[in-house]
């Protein structure tokens, strides 16, 4: 099962937790100095270290269709940069453990684990398992003083980046999110939009992650993040209560209108989908529409993304055709359950 199809801790505020470990092999340069032959050797080495282990499957990314690659980006399983690559690259995945190792991304190996809700500990443990297998069979670039050596110095040391996707409608509506973003940067955390660096926060979804990777232990990174996540979740929940106390009718109207659109509209674009998603998800969190589960809504958002919709159609779609199919998926999935 994919991460968004499973329930996770504290789903009212946290959509997902993603852990990434950057690892590199000694004796191989980074792009653009890495030759095609070198990239293929790295892929073979990673394959011998991991793909034969139980639960891991090798995917040659050169053979994957572009729409499929884009759909993997929409599911947050690979990075957009990785999907755009034209040089040899591969993925070794363990769907059960939700671990995806990108080979020949910016770093030679990027071990990712993505889990539903707030689960940094679970995600890190799963990623470490793949890390240990790589560690024992390959010569990983490590320096006693500097730690794990990475292509970009910003990832040096632990090579660990934990990114949490938060759903913050109340802090967005009240504008409090801006001051929180400022405070986070002071404690070494960075806030980004929904789809990564430089992107806007759609659907009241924000990604925040650690900036510092060196001079701290993995546990310290995790606990710093846990503390910050706890404070944000508290602020969001308090603000939700206040909003509901002061504007219940208006909020109910907003949520039910969004739900109505999802259940009846004939064409829905991606931008509108994000708005509807945010309103209905807020409705679940505020107890306005209890018949819908977070998992149902989160997986619907991903299933309705452009490339993923196209794959479901089985052929290339124009934008209006996609909007029509998206609305159809929404109508079918959001009908009230008959009791």
């Amino acid at each position, binding site marked *: 099962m994919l991460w968004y199809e499973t329930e996770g801790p504290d789903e009212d505020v946290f959509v997902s937790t993603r852990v990434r470990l950057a690892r590199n092999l000694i004796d191989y340069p980074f792009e653009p100095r890495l030759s095609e032959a070198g990239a293929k050797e790295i892929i073979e080495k990673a394959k011998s270290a991991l793909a034969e282990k139980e639960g891991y499957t090798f995917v040659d990314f050169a053979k994957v269709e572009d729409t499929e690659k884009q759909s993997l980006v929409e599911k947050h399983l690979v990075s957009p940069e990785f999907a755009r690559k034209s040089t040899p690259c591969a993925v070794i995945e363990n769907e059960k453990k939700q671990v995806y190792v990108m080979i020949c991304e910016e770093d030679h190996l990027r071990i990712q684990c993505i889990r539903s809700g707030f689960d940094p500990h679970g995600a890190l443990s799963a990623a470490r398992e793949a890390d240990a297998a790589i560690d024992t069979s390959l010569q990983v670039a*490590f320096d*006693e003083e500097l730690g794990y*050596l990475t292509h970009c*110095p910003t990832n040096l040391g632990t090579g660990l980046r934990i990114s949490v996707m938060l759903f913050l409608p109340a802090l967005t509506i009240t504008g409090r999110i801006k001051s929180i973003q400022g405070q986070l940067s002071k404690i070494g955390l960075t806030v980004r939009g929904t789809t990564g660096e430089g992107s806007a926060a759609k659907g009241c979804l924000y990604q925040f992650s650690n900036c510092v990777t060196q*001079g701290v*232990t993995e546990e310290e990174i995790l606990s710093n993040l846990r503390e910050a996540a706890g404070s944000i979740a508290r602020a969001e929940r308090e603000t939700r209560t206040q909003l509901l106390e002061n504007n219940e009718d208006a909020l109910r109207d907003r949520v039910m209108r969004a739900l109505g659109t999802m259940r009846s509209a004939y064409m829905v674009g991606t931008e509108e989908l994000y708005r509807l998603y945010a309103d209905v998800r807020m409705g679940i969190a505020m107890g306005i529409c209890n018949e819908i589960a977070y998992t149902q809504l989160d997986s619907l958002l991903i299933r309705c993304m452009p490339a993923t919709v196209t794959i479901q159609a089985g052929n290339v779609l124009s934008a209006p055709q996609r909007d029509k199919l998206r609305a159809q998926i929404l109508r079918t999935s959001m009908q009230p359950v008959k009791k």
Partner: protein
Amino acid sequence: MKCTKCNAKEATVFYRENINGKETKYALCGDCAAAMEKETGNLFADPFGGNLLGSLFSGIPQKIQPRKEEKKCSLCGATFRQLAENGKVGCPACYNSFREELAPTLKRLHGTAVHRGRAPEKFQAKRSAMEKLASLEQELKKAIETEAYEEAAKLRDQIRALRGQ
């Protein structure tokens, strides 16, 4: 709007520079912009490309002429200048080849330049031996201070044995 540099021609190039939070705005005419680009070499650098991070690398003056014998990385052949331009290293060995040159940048990025996190298994054993040594040395210091010489002699033997390994 007139060019802010020559104050004569019409400004056609608008450029904003942000160095460590200090923002400077330029409105330049074509000639002044070309002159400035020649001077700094990166007026039109992609703000999201390597150059943004490249500016983090310190110790490389703006207008150095490439020397004949520039130091190169032992594995990939990259120079520190190339690292600074890209904001990224050429290969893992670059960190060793340019250890001194990179130190200020790493300190600025991470606050400290010493790794405290996990290490591959083969490094773990060495690391625990180092930690044990540090703790024994601490105990030895304390033993000498409290004039517990018998204990100090035992500790000294242990330290010698550990160092001899």
